[in-house]
């Protein structure tokens, strides 16, 4: 070998190497010896011939190109598309396999060329390592092979290849079957062909993917319109839905995985099948919602959720439907629901369930649709068309228009609640579980009410009556309800007061026991000592001249209580008290449950049972204020449940306001309870009715105090926010304010402004000098 030094040239060696190379290219069998000879020859050429590596490369290229030309001829000989594809895939398959073998013997060649081209500075050992590591992947010969294939056969044939492949896909879309391997093969050739190390998918993407997208788009542009025109929108929706699924599956088959092609194709299909027909599809939304076509809506939702701005219009349609259907329902049944809170709440719940099941069945409880439902339902609940609660203007200074009326819903909800918790025909009819379910329903509706403070006020009034008259159906449920109110976020100070009310009643029971043991004879009376802070409603006390029998107890009770709790002041709320008296006449004896006021009036006859007493004298005797006396007398001369009234009077009037000073009253000596048209000799009747918690005047004040309380709460909240933020924009302040107050009421824009003005006026805060929309806290 040494003596041959300098004399081995490429020209010497190539003739013996070439047959082996050609065999390899044609995939003919190469013997072990030949394979090894090739290695050796390459080595020698690279070692001894300075120009050897380049000559070797060029010769190799020539043979590769020549081989590719032959392959191309074989492929192009096929006229028929499937055959062409088959031939190409077969040729490519063979060639690509060789791309993994042929480069191996020429590795030495690469090192030589690389080393020379990199110059002396390059570290040959690292370059060697690199090449070994990278194996054949980016080897020079491999690149040579792929590039040659790309430049000769591929450039010429790719249009035909693509067209043929796309025709096959098209045929599949039209329901014809074929060998899907053909399309996959073409795609694989595109993917493997690329020798660009940075973007290995370049050829695939620029050619195959682009052609696939284009073909798909063109196909559906045409088909979508055809289908729409021929079959209508509703059929089109299921067509589009089905096609989208199909195309996605097809894309998984024919497009390169992990290349992002599938997502791009899906997007393309969505654009052509959905976006471009969006207005047509959306036009169906409102009618379908109205008709409750849940299946079609589900389909529509599935389709439109794929594209931008597809769902928002459906949400709007749903909201509009809930509002209009809800209000129409309320208006249609206005007669029943305005007079019957049970019917009203049931109707509201029925609506809620209807809309909820629509959202569930049509839109699968998608959060966006749940929000839309809530928004619209809130609107229905707080609507004031059917009935409203008039509150006085918050700024009495400017009382021109008054405030906007509010929904009466909270009041009716509280009434319904009372019917469930009090001993009523309704609560007796229902099982404990049913009552609980219904109370939970009340809380559900309550969630949507803006003026929750009104509910709280009425609920507390009802609770007060139930506790004082001891008319709760189930005391356990009463206390559960308090906790549930806490759970749904009612303000803590409110809930705490309710809890305190129960506590007072319990403490009072113990107190009564002690009072009876201490003073032996008082088993006839029951005292309730109630905490003014928890119970009081700001109502004034009413003067009344108590019957002596009752009056005598007062100092005794006070003395007893003072011994237990010195320093506590007791005030008597006679209008909340009541008792049972025995009434006897020639017909029989009857037990009457009466209010203290009724008692005071009736006791006027105790000493003179047969006399007629004028209105004026009754006033003198009872010392009741005029409106209270009229109301009390009316309850005794015209009690709805009685066939024979307790008192008679003349001249007759239509309502208590018409009693004159000289109207005379006398005890009905024929009074009796009537059962089955027969007067009874014994019996018990409750004449209390709805316990009056406040006088007429204070009922107007009640509404005022709701407003007053709101003003106070708003001011408190503004100060709280400002203290924390020091400086805040108007918009931020408004939203924080609503957040704080939402569990009580929704502060109106006007009220907020007025309170801000008041606080500025009183130097709690000021405006920023440079920005009228920014407020600054002033300590």
């Amino acid at each position, binding site marked *: 070998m040494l003596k041959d030094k300098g004399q081995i040239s490429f020209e010497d060696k190539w003739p013996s190497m070439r047959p082996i190379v050609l065999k390899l290219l044609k995939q003919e069998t190469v013997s072990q010896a030949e394979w090894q000879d090739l290695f050796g020859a390459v080595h020698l050429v690279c070692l001894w011939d300075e120009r050897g590596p380049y000559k070797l490369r060029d010769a190799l290229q020539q043979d590769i190109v020549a081989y590719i030309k032959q392959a191309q001829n074989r492929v192009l000989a096929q006229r028929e598309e499937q055959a062409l594809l088959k031939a190409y895939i077969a040729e490519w398959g063979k060639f690509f396999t060789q791309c993994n073998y042929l480069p191996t013997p020429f590795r030495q060649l690469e090192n030589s060329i690389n080393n020379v081209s990199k110059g002396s500075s390059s570290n040959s050992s690292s370059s060697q390592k690199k090449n070994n590591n990278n194996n054949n992947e980016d080897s020079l010969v491999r690149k040579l092979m792929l590039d040659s294939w790309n430049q000769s056969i591929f450039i010429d044939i790719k249009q035909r290849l693509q067209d043929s492949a796309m025709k096959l896909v098209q045929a599949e879309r039209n329901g014809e079957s074929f060998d899907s391997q053909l399309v996959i093969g073409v795609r694989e050739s595109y993917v493997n062909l690329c020798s660009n190390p940075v973007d290995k998918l370049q050829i695939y993407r620029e050619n195959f993917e682009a052609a696939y997208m284009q073909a798909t788009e063109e196909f559906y542009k045409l088909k979508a319109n055809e289908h729409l025109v021929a079959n209508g929108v509703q059929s089109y929706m299921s067509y589009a839905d089905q096609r989208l699924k199909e195309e996605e599956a097809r894309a998984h088959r024919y497009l390169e995985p992990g290349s992002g092609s599938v997502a791009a194709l899906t997007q393309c299909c969505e654009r052509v099948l959905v976006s471009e027909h969006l207005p047509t599809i959306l036009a169906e939304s409102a009618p379908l919602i109205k008709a409750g076509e849940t299946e079609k809506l589900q389909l529509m939702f599935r389709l439109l959720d794929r594209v931008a701005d597809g769902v928002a219009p459906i949400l709007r349609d749903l909201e509009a439907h809930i509002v209009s259907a809800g209000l129409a329902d309320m208006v249609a049944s206005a007669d029943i629901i305005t007079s019957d809170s049970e019917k009203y709440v049931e109707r509201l719940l029925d609506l809620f369930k209807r809309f909820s099941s629509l959202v569930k069945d049509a839109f699968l409880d998608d959060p966006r649709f749940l929000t839309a439902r809530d928004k619209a339902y809130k609107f229905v609940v707080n609507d004031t068309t059917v009935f409203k609660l008039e509150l006085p203007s918050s700024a009495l200074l400017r009382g*021109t228009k008054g405030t906007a009326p509010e929904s009466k819903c909270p009041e009716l909800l509280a009434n319904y609640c009372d019917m469930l918790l009090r001993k009523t025909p309704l609560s007796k009819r229902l099982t404990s579980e049913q009552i609980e379910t219904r109370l939970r329903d009340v809380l559900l509706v309550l969630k949507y009410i803006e003026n929750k403070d009104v509910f709280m006020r009425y609920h507390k009034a009802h609770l007060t009556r139930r506790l004082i008259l001891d008319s709760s159906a189930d005391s356990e449920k009463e206390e559960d309800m308090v906790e549930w109110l806490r759970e749904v976020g009612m303000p803590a100070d409110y809930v705490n007061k309710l809890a305190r009310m129960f506590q007072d009643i319990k403490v009072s029971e113990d107190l009564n026991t002690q009072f009876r043991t201490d003073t032996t004879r008082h088993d006839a009376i029951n005292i309730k000592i109630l905490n003014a802070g928890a119970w009081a409603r700001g109502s004034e006390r009413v003067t009344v001249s108590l019957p002596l029998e009752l009056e005598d107890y007062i100092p005794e009770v006070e003395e007893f209580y003072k011994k237990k709790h010195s320093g506590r002041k007791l005030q008597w709320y006679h209008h909340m008290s009541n008792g049972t008296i025995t009434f006897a006449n020639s017909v029989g004896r009857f037990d009457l449950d009466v209010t203290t006021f009724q008692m005071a009036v009736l006791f006027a006859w105790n000493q003179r049972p047969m006399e007629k007493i004028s209105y004026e004298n009754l006033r003198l005797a009872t010392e009741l204020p005029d409106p209270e006396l009229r109301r009390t007398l009316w309850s005794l001369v015209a009690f709805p449940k009685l066939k024979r009234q307790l008192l008679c009077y003349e001249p007759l009037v239509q309502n208590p306001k018409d009693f004159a000073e000289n109207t005379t009253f006398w005890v009905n000596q024929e009074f009796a309870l009537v059962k089955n048209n027969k007067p009874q000799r014994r019996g018990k009747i409750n004449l209390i009715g709805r316990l009056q918690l406040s006088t007429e005047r204070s009922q107007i004040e009640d509404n005022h105090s709701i407003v007053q309380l709101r003003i106070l709460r708003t001011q408190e909240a503004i100060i709280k926010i400002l203290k924390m933020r020091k400086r805040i924009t*108007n918009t931020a302040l408004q939203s924080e304010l609503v957040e704080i107050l939402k569990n009580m009421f929704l502060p109106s*824009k*006007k009220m907020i*402004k*007025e309170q*801000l*003005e008041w606080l500025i006026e009183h130097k709690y805060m000021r*405006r920023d000098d440079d920005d*009228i929309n920014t407020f600054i806290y002033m300590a």
Partner: protein
Amino acid sequence: TKVQLTAEKANKPFYQKLPSIPRTMSSLGSNENRLNPDDFKVLVLAWKLNASQMCRFTKLEFTQGLKNMKTDSIKGIQQKLSDITSELRRDSEQFKDLYRFTFKFGLDVSTGQRILPADIAIVLWRLVFTSNEPPILERWLAYLEASPHVRGVPKDTWYMFLNFCEFVGEDLSSYDDTEAWPSLFDDFVEYENDQMNQNITKNDIRIQD
């Protein structure tokens, strides 16, 4: 109302320079052209003198004020007032100061008033805008006059009215009641829009006829 100077004994050298102590404001004007209490210049003078109360200057305010104005004669005062008045048309910061002063000026200090009664406010608005009336002013004042329930104008509302005038110009359509404007402006704009709508309906009916 009579404008009156509380002039006790004039024993200060500065005062002695004046030919005679003016007993009333009207003597501050020349014979042909005396100043009326509702003259803009009186307001300007009060502002310059930093008067604490309408229609009345204390001696201290008067002497100190004239010193600040660097003048000591009636003629000088008149000249100065004319200068300041024309300056106010150009200098919006100066005008803002005068405008804000006017609110304080209008309050009845003896009763510790904090809110300007509407009738006084109307007069003062006319007065303070004498020489540069905002386009919206007449409609605003007409609204106040037609709204007896508006009893008073708080300071913030008074101050903000100047911003309001600048902001709306003569066109209320740009007004946005979600911004932190005082509620009285909301009411005013709502009132104006109501009026406008009524007019439109009337016209519509006429066209249909």
